[in-house]
Structures are given as structure tokens and as C-alpha cells.
């Protein structure tokens, strides 16, 4: 079974299902309304855009890059968007059209993202999938720990499968 990248970071009971790019793509495509949540450290802006289905929240640090690539994300730090998502039942989404059932998390410091995912795990009906390099036990689904190279490939594959 997948292990948290930092071994101490075992939440105990409920741990993310580790998924391959193919499985991840299925999960993403099956979602009714998904939202992509990108953190301040995100470098893979293009992939993020391609994974999203319109709804993108980008940390202010990376908005420029998103815009340069033609996307128009909502600017919000990860804490704030997570705070909205935990209120899944009453928050009407970025477009006011309803709640999300899947959030794709990427691009933040490992331990920080872990706490955000933990919030949603416990307090939200919105499922989460973590597609950064390291296994995030507090997500619903997560990539396993991967080498830099393998992860880049996985991300490329994921985008490909999602677009298929």
C-alpha cells in the first residue's frame, strides 16, 4: 500500500487510494463537476489547465502563468478555496451553479496540502484527488510517491487520458 511521503504523516485510519494516471483519469472524467485547485508552487500550469474543466482556482502566485496560457482562473489561496469547498452543501461554486463533487489538488508544499485535504476528508462531501509528486494520504485518491521523472510522465499521461 502507498505510504505517505513523510512517514510520520499517517492519519491513521482513512488513507487515499493510490491511483495510476489511467485510474485517475477515469475518476476525473466520472465527476459531475470538478474543480482544479492549484497551489503557490505549481509549475505544471499547462497540465493543470488541461486537467480542469473550466473551474480553476489558482494561488495568486501563479495566476500570471495561467493567464499567459490563456486560462482565466479564479484567484484564491488554497486555504480560502478549501474553506469554501468544505461547505460543499451550501456553497454554490465559482460560477454559482452548484457544488463540486471532485477537487483536483496540486502545487503546494506537501505538509500544507495534506492539511487542506484532511479538512475536506473529514468535513466535506467533495472528494479529492492529489496529483502532485507525493502520495497524499488525506486525499480520497492520490498518485503514489514518484520520482520527478516518473511524475512528469504520469501527469502527461493523465492529461492524455482525461482528454481522450
Amino acid at each position, binding site marked *: 500500500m502507498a505510504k505517505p511521503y513523510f512517514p510520520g504523516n499517517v492519519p491513521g485510519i482513512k488513507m487515499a487510494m493510490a491511483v495510476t494516471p489511467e485510474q485517475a483519469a477515469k475518476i476525473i472524467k466520472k465527476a459531475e463537476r470538478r474543480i482544479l485547485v492549484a497551489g*503557490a508552487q505549481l509549475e505544471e500550469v499547462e497540465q493543470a489547465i488541461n486537467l480542469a474543466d473550466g473551474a480553476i482556482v489558482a494561488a495568486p502566485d501563479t495566476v500570471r502563468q495561467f493567464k499567459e496560457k490563456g486560462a482565466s482562473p479564479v484567484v484564491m489561496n488554497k*486555504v480560502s478555496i478549501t474553506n469554501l469547498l468544505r461547505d460543499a452543501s451550501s456553497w454554490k461554486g465559482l460560477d454559482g451553479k452548484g457544488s463540486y463533487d471532485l477537487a483536483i489538488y496540486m502545487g503546494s508544499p506537501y*505538509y500544507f496540502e495534506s*492539511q487542506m*485535504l484532511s479538512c475536506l476528508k473529514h468535513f466535506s462531501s467533495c472528494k479529492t484527488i492529489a496529483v502532485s509528486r507525493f502520495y497524499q494520504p488525506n486525499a480520497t485518491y492520490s498518485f503514489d510517491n514518484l520520482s520527478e521523472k516518473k511524475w512528469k510522465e504520469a501527469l502527461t499521461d493523465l492529461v492524455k487520458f482525461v482528454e481522450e
Partner: protein
Amino acid sequence: MKRATMKADEVHTPTATIKGLEISIGKIIDDEWDEKMGPTPMPSVTDLRGWDFRLLERYKPFYGPFCDSCCLCTYGKCDLSDGKKGACGLGIEPQQGRIILLACLIGSTAHGAHARHMVDHFLETVGDMDIDMGDNVQVEAPVTRLVTGIRPRRMSDFLDVLDYGEREILHLLSAAHTGQEGNVIDFESKALHASMIDQMFMEVADIAQIVRYDLPKGDPEAPLVEIGLGVIDRTKPVVMCFGHNALSATSVMDYTNIKGLYDSVEVAGVCCTALDMTRYESRAKIAGHISHQIKYLKTGVADVITVDEQCIRTDTLELAQETGTVVIATTDKICYGLPDRTHEPAQETIDLLVEGKLPGALILEPEMVGEIAVEVAMKLHPKRKKKRFDVKKAASACSQCKQCNKACENFIDIARGMKEAQEGNYSYFSEIFMRCIGCGRCLPVCSKNIDIIRVMTEAAKEKIMNEKYKIRVGRGPIQDTEIRNVGQPIVMGEIPGVIALVGCPNYEEGPEEVVEIAKTFLDRRYIVVATGCAAMDMAMWKNEEGKGLYELYPGRFDAGCLANVGSCVSNAHIAGAAIKIASIFAHRDLRANYEEIADYILNRVGAVGIAWGAMSQKAASIATGVNRLGIPVIVGARGAKYRRMYLGRKDIPEDWIVYNARDGSKVQVGPGPEHLIYASESKEEAIVTAAKLCIRPNDTSKGRQIKLAHYIDLHKRYFGEYPDDIHLYVRTRSDIPITEKDTIDRILKENNWEEKQIPDPTLLERLVRRR
């Protein structure tokens, strides 16, 4: 009130078998203080619950649990995942509140025990003393006055204050028992109470030591002293004092001084003890903070280490033994299993330590520590064989398995450093050295059992030698006169804000981020104050002319100034400054008038705390304590591991309604401050958000213009964009920064902005003057 009346029937007396005791009832503290008693003297756990509920209705707790279980009793472990409850009925959400309560209590008691230790010790050893904080500090204990209604005039007046605090701690900790509180907001209210008590404890501790040791009393021109990893002259005997309670360290300094040894012995401190040492004696040196403890230990720099309390590596004795450093434990908080030599002759103890018959000793009488520490260091220094450590050789064992890299939460590429070191190239280790927080987690995982920290430290030696900077000695409280000068511009918003950089160094990037944050706000003429590890890290930078922040910016509490207030317990003076603005500048009643003052600060005083590397339970209670007082706090990304934030929702307009004290009408004032405590993912975000969190409902239009201008400018600078919430902060057209007028006009139009009223804002209905 209950507490206050209670005391009436109560007279404490000695258990009177003490020989030769004279019962002289000193003075009855009758009421020389002419300020009328406010509504909540020595508030009980529930007395300020209404205020807490009001705060937390707007700033709802957000939890990111660390663990799906509860393990606190033998019904457990209980599975709290998926909404399940524990055997006692507790769900994961109140359980988080309980964990937070425990953390805040542990933090609060750390300072409380520190204060109690000092006050008891001073009364016992030097007797009672007047609390005189100098002519410029008439409101000498604002937190204590505010919370308890007591105006302490003598050291012994603190006894009532401490008794009160201890009583509250008792009640609060008991609420963490299985089958007690069940509501998450009530848990948070208790955490807020514990943390308010902490503010009071810190104030007592710092005032006690200021009075006893005549430390700077709000001196903006406190001297500059040496700080840095390079300050220690290793050719001399070295005594290092680790910790946060300078009692025993003063005895080290006294002994060194009296014996005229300052030229021949190095006396240095680590962590807040170091800061407090330099407040006492500017010949003492600051060797760094908690991140560097393990490095000093591993390289055996010190001949003797004294440990007092808090944030000291718990394996200090074990590590010290590796290099033959002697450890002297000096409080009941840290005993390390060492033999208690307090009641044995000092000379005998010195001999045993020098001869290596004991690895250390427990000496509970602070006054004894100086002689033993200094004498042992002097005798031991020539005896200690300093084996040359061959860095290259040690590094050559590395197999590049990279287990170490995986253990490092700061993503330091240790393997790379090892590889380079094998070739005699120490640049990577030197470069990342200050980013290593000294957690030691890389050590046990090394498949080749390499002493990684030792290698890293020795490799960075040359760099370390040059790590010498200047820091301004902790000045203590803010002067009443300073408050008078800046009160108006702060409250009106013309000084855009007070930024307090406090807390621990648990961050990825080393000191440079803290330096940048400080410098950004200093250059924009915010008031910047600092304490603790943050105050230290802020010193670890020089400009091209070799000048650091403390040399470049004056030490006043004023726009564009950098005031190092002191150690962790000096944090109370930051809260105290905010309180004094309400009291001295705005003439609000201070005495036992907590809610009104907190309401004042929340709505008017643009102060923000940044605890960029907050790690400890103390940091948790310090932050939560100022939160109750209406001051927002930003922690770094790792602060998310505290598991709880208090977040506002700027998308819900109804959350931002206040009373207009002038007529009782309800007015929507916009999301200021937006959050009470939140973790920021990046330094850039923190800077921009700090500027925004300075915005307060009471800002004059001129003030709001200035604050908005900074916010917008910083946002543009760091993110290349206008922020998307400007329209929420423009109440009337006169709030619009002139330079940005056109853009903002457009933004307002796009957002269907409507002009709003600027009220005399309050959350307390009872403060409404008329209807």
C-alpha cells in the same frame, strides 16, 4: 466579579511553624487605582464566552485534522473518520477543538510556570520590589490590568494574578477529560481563555525580570549586540545557556563578571534565554535559536551547556555526551534523570563533572549554577580532546541512497551535499546550512550511519565563522509616549499598520523570508516589532555595506522603525501596545474591560502578527491570545499543522455587519480583518495578506486610502495583478487611492459597487450610545 468578591473572606497566612517567623502584614492593597472596576475582573471560563462566540460566528474554525483517531482514554483508540464518534460521543470536530485547547494550555502553562518560577524566586531571594517601568511607562502592565483589574505596584501583587491564572488553567485542563465539553465552539472559547491567560502570564514573567534585573524599560535605543553562528570564540572555554528562562543564565553572567572572566570565557545563549541574557549584559552573545542547537551539540562547541526550559532538544544530554560537553539542568521542567546536586557542595559537583564521573547535574538553585558552569568550563576546556573531524572521509561513506533526503521536510538534498563533500566541495552544504532546522530526522535513516549534521556543520564551518550580525537588545514594553504619538495615525489608518514578526523558525527557507517580510514593511513605513526566534532571524542579513536591519532602522515604535521587544514572554508587550492604544490614546477604560478593548482593537487597530515559522504550543497560545484581543495572525505553510484556523468568509456579506455605536444601526463594513488566523502558502501571499489584514472598519478615508494603496501595490508587485476584492474595501469614493482612481472606478462598476456608510464600529450592542 465572583472572583473578586470571593477574595474578601480570604486571608492567606503562613503555615506558621517556620521558625522565627514574623507575621507582618505588609499592606492591604486597597484601591489606590482610581479607574473604576470594569465588568470582568478575573473573568471565569465562561465570562467572556459571549465575546468568543461573537468572534467565532464570523471567524469560523477550520480544521485539518492530523489524525483520524482519538487516543486519549482506554475506550480508544476511537475511529473518528467518516463522521463516526468516539466511545464518549465525541466527533472529530470537537476533538480538534479539544486538541487545540490542550495545545494552548500547554503553551500557556509554559509561560505561566516561567512567570511563577521567577516571581517566587525573586520574592524569596530579594524580597518584594516596586514595579517601576520607568517614567515613560506609566501603564506598566496593560494585559494584567485589562484581564484582572489589578494594577500591580509591587512584585508581590503578581501573586494574586498568578493564583488567578493557575485557577483558570485548572478549570480549563479539566475540560479536556473524557466526557466533558462536547461543543467545538465551547472548546475554542476555552482555548481562547487559556490563551488570554497566557498573555497575562507572559506579561508577568517579563515585567518580573525587567524589574529584578533592571532590563531595558522600553528603551528604543537599547544597545546592539552580537548575534550569529560565528560569534563564539572556540579557543576559549565556552558556556552556552539553552532555553527560555534566564534565571540561571544571569548567575552565569554574574559569576563571569564578578570573577572578571569576560575576556577568558565565552558566555553565549541559544533561544530566548540568549535574548534575555543580552538584555541583562551586552557582553553576552546570541548564538542562535532552536534550529542550531543540534549543530552546536554535534560539534561540541560548548564545554558546558546549561538548560533551563522550553524548546530545548530533549536529547541534549545524550548528544552532549557524544562530545564530552557537560550539561547542567536548572529547573524542574528538564531534569534529564540527572542527580540532584542542589544540596551538595559546589566544589564536589565541579570535580565530579570535570573528572567525567557525572555527565551532568541538576542544580535547582539558580545562584549556584554560575560558579559550577563557569568553573567546569574553565577546567574542562583544556582537557577536552578536540578530535579533528574529517569531513571528506565521513562524507565518503555515503552511498547516495537518498534516504536522508526523504526524511527532510525542508527538502534539503543531503545526498548532493555528501557527493560534493566527497570531492572537498562544501558549497552546497554552506548554502543550505541556514535552511536546516536541525530536526535531526535525517540522522537515524542514514543507511551508512553518517553523522549528517556533523558533516554538514563542519562543511559549512567557514561560512559559519562569518555569520556575525548585530541585533538590538530587547527593549521591553512600548512607551506610553510612543503610544501617544502613533495612536492617532494607527487608529485613523495613516500609519498603515503594525506588523509583529514573532515565533519559531519552523520554515523551509531559513531567515531570508523573515528578513524580506520585515524589510518590505519597514520600507513602507509600517511599524515592525519582533520577538523571539523571529527577532533573531531578522538579524541574519546584511546589505552591501554590511549593515543589518537593526542597524538600518531605528528601534522606536513608530512608522518605519523596527522594535525588537525581546524574548517570547515579551510578546505580551505587543498585545500591550494595542491595548494601550485603546487606553492611552482613545481613553477607553482599561480596567477589567476586556470585551470593549478587544472590540476596539478588532475594529480599529491595524495590527497583524506574522508567526512565519510557528512551531510550539506556546506559539499556538500566543496567536490564540491575540486573536481573542482582535488581532489577526498569519502563520507559515507549516502552521497548517496546528490543525485549526479562524477564517472569515468575504463572500458572505452578512458576516461583516457591525453596530454603529452612534445610533445602533447595523452596517456592513466589509471583510476587515478578513481572517483571525490563517496559514499562508507563500511568503508573497503572506506579505500581501498582512497588508490587507491591517484594514479595519474604523479607518478614516485617508487611512483606508493608504492601506488600500499598499495592498494593491504589493499585490501587483508580487502577483502582477490587481486583487479581486478591492470593491469590498471601498466604502465611499474617498476611500479610493488617488493613484489608482481610474482602475478602481472600473472595478467598482464591474462589481456593482454601492456606497456604504462609515460607522463607529462595534460588535457589542451594549456600546451603542443611543438608538
